[in-house]
């Protein structure tokens, strides 16, 4: 199993998950520490001290500039991390055009919609496939195909594979002039008893 085809299976939520988990950890750690201090685990006198500790206040008083820079630094880091995360998280998954040739004077790019439509039409002619959705993911230099096939009840998955690889993907590979095109196929099994009627175009 190639890594690129595996990555094309679905949009990764890895970044969202890691950052969310970190945020949760920080919140839980802060709460637990506060409760530990509060219930006197670090000494009964510590628990009786004010939350705005005079020691801290006097340190800030003597190191005003340092405190400012620390606060500004923390603020900037939070802001940058937050904005980068928002942008990454809200940006739609790119649909790359495929660059067939980057040579100056003979640059050749195939639009995403053209590729996706061609492969979809091919895939929908496979026996037992009632619906196909196709898109490209990845970068223009390293595109990967993502295909969602809805199979009619009782279709043999192996036949579909043979057809898909032998005909549909072979044609796509030929068109792109590549020996291997990373592809992620998602099957919806037994979704309907009969092929859906052709859509009005």
């Amino acid at each position, binding site marked *: 199993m190639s890594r690129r085809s595996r990555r094309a299976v679905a949009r990764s939520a890895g970044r969202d998950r890691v950052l969310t988990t970190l945020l949760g950890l920080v*919140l839980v750690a802060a709460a637990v520490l506060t409760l530990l*201090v509060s219930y006197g685990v670090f000494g009964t006198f510590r628990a009786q001290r*004010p939350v705005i500790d005079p020691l801290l206040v006097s340190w800030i008083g003597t190191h005003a500039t340092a405190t400012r820079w620390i606060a500004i630094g923390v603020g*900037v880091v*939070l802001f940058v991390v*937050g904005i980068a*995360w928002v942008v990454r998280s809200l940006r739609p998954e790119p649909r790359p055009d495929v660059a067939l040739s980057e040579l100056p004077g003979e640059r050749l790019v195939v639009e995403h919609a053209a590729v996706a439509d061609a492969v979809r039409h091919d895939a929908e002619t496979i026996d037992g496939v009632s619906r196909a959705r196709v898109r490209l993911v990845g970068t223009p230099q390293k595109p990967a195909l993502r295909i969602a096939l809805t199979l009619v009840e009782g279709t043999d*998955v192996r036949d579909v594979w043979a057809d898909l*690889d032998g005909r549909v993907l072979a044609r796509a590979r030929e068109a792109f002039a590549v020996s291997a095109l990373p592809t992620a196929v998602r099957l919806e099994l037994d979704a309907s008893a009969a092929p859906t009627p052709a859509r009005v175009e």
Partner: protein
Amino acid sequence: MRLLLRVLAPLFALLLAVVGLGIVVETVTLWVAPAASPLVVPWPSWRAAVEGLTWQSGSVRAVAIVVGVVGLFVLLLGLVARRHDVYLADPVPEVTVTTSPRSLARAVGHDVRSHDDVVSASVVASAKKITVKAATLDPAEEVRASLRERVDETLLRLPLARRPRVAVSVTTTKGVK
């Protein structure tokens, strides 16, 4: 959970950015033009509210507990929102084939329900385990054996990357056959 993460993650991100911006703005205002402080965030009133509280105060504990519960939810959200794809064996090296647990359950459920002796059935599937619960009017033990065979046949037709465990339970219900 994945959908919830998709919705909440940008909100968390926005929250972080806003907190960061607030800290920078207030710090710079206090430094450059102390007379204009506080500019947006009313932090002096917050400070006045916290002043006089000790770590033992009930409100400090309450806030800590609330923050802890929220944090636990956020932590779980991050940990639980993983993919549940069921992988099929790769037909060729550069092709990955997956299906959804729901789809697998539908395929198995279809075969189970087509059995003559099964009155009703429910199927829950994941990549690791398929649980079939069926009701029949006949003695449960015989139906169970044939259902098991049928599910195994279905799985043989589906080239799954790893064979899930199959648990079949059959109950006899009362009724007219």
